[in-house]
């Protein structure tokens, strides 16, 4: 097995991107990644496209993007892991390099959710999960899944609505400083408390938006890294797990079991102690599709004990300067959540943080040279946790 590093990153503006088509949007990110690495298309031996895609016009996006970006005739595929699609695409590219099959691979995540009218998009997201019982039967929409987690968590640990509001206020604070973010605007707790309900107890300001966007990373094996860059960011480890499709088969709604399993896998490979995991990292990206998801992520990643995640936010410990800065690019909440691009966007954010290349007002202090990202599909239907480091893994 070979060590694998990220040697180039690309990220488009997130938001309403009806100004371009899917392949043009993907190319914006790919082009940036190639320029950063001073590589061209002929250097790439394999590429993977992360795209959920049900709402967009292209049914075979990998080849459409391949043709437009001049990546033919390299092998490719489109991958799907719901909202963790980006991490799944990264995983496929990562394993292709790690195994020695290729030296340089590209992972690009792209989504154009505004290709369909909003009610259709809401309907299509609602189908994620167990289609028959939960969707066909009574039309459960996606926020309801997280709403049930929120009510379970809030009642078990006696948590107030302001505790969820803290997450939204923080992520908008950093979104306001990220020029790629969909919502570059701060919000107050009053704005939060006055925002309209989506699925009780969750409000519109608990929810990530419908977003278009793309992100790309170029991966290279240890042998060729030196020729490309003197500041690679290594993929230290990745953990992945899944949960049941049917929520009626779950046993606990106060955390995301698959995410905890994925974190423990990644930590084990990296030699990280779960209980003190926050000490190893300078920064983390977590999957805050809804505010409650960020609170649960703190606990599933070992940053806080069970039932104490909300206190990290209450004490501002996840701002820059706190114990562990989280989602300081705005997170899904403010940066936006273009399903297939989100995991790769997280990889781009962490890579740029470790290289001191983040936007003004969003850069953390890098002490350990290590960060992680946590990407969840559905409500733990899929989970990926990936650790990045400026230090080359020893194996």
């Amino acid at each position: 097995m070979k060590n694998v590093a990220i040697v180039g990153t690309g990220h488009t503006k997130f938001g309403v991107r009806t100004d371009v088509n899917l392949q043009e949007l993907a190319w914006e990110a790919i082009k940036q990644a190639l320029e950063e690495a001073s590589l061209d298309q002929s250097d790439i031996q394999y590429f993977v496209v992360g795209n959920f895609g049900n709402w967009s016009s292209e049914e075979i996006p990998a080849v459409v993007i391949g043709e437009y970006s001049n990546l033919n005739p390299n092998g490719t595929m489109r991958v799907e892991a719901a909202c963790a699609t980006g991490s799944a695409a990264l995983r496929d590219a990562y394993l292709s390099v790690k195994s020695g099959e290729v030296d340089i691979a590209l992972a690009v995540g792209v989504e154009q959710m505004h290709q369909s009218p909003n009610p259709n998009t809401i309907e299509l997201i609602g189908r994620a999960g167990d289609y028959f019982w939960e969707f066909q039967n009574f039309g459960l929409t996606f926020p309801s899944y997280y709403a049930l987690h929120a009510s379970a968590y809030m009642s078990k640990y006696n948590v107030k609505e302001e505790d969820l509001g803290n997450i939204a206020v923080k992520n908008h604070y950093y979104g306001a400083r990220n020029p790629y973010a969909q919502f570059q605007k701060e919000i107050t707790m009053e704005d939060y408390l006055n925002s309209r309900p989506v699925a009780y107890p969750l409000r519109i300001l608990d929810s990530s938006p419908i977003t278009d966007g793309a992100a790309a990373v170029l991966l290279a094996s240890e042998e060729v890294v030196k020729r490309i860059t003197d500041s690679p960011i290594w993929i230290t480890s990745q953990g992945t797990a899944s949960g049941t499709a049917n929520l009626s088969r779950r046993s606990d709604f106060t955390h995301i079991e698959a995410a905890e399993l994925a974190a423990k896998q990644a930590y084990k490979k990296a030699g990280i102690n779960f209980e003190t995991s926050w000490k190893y990292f300078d920064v983390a990206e977590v999957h805050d599709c809804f505010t409650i998801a960020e609170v649960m992520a703190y606990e599933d990643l070992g940053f806080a004990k069970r039932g104490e995640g909300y206190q990290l936010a209450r004490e501002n410990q996840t701002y820059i300067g706190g114990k562990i800065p989280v989602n300081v690019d705005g997170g899904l909440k403010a940066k936006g959540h273009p399903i297939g691009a989100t995991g790769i966007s997280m990889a781009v954010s962490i890579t740029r943080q470790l290289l001191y290349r983040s936007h003004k007002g969003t850069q953390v202090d890098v002490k350990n040279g290590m960060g992680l990202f946590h990407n969840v599909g559905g409500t733990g239907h899929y989970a990926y946790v990936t650790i990045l480091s400026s230090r080359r893994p020893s194996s």
Partner: protein
Amino acid sequence: MNVFPPQVWREKETLYRLIGGKCNCGNVIFPYSPVCNKCGSTSVSKIKLSGKGILLQYTVTYQHRPGFEKTQPTYVGLIKLQEGPEIIAPLTDVDEGELKEGDKVEAVIRRIKSDSNNGLIVYGTKFRLIKDGDK
């Protein structure tokens, strides 16, 4: 909104009769599955669930979904059935502020939606509160 009759027909035991599975290990599964989600055994027989349960959590969803306009907002519960499984299911005949954790609920058959083109109606299971005075 299109209703596809074969789909409704093949799921009739789940939708209308709350047929679940019971494994030799004692685990009860809903909807029915031929493989136990606890022990992996395939010794699972079909049982009819009572439809009685306790409301553990609930949410009220305000999102617009085509075909469900008449039932906005939608009340959805996490229900612990008497036989053991915790399932997610729609609630009916409730008013805002009426629900609380620990309420007793029971399954009833209700209209879910109708096809706007051919008028076919889909029925299914919802849960309602068992109020004091009911037996």
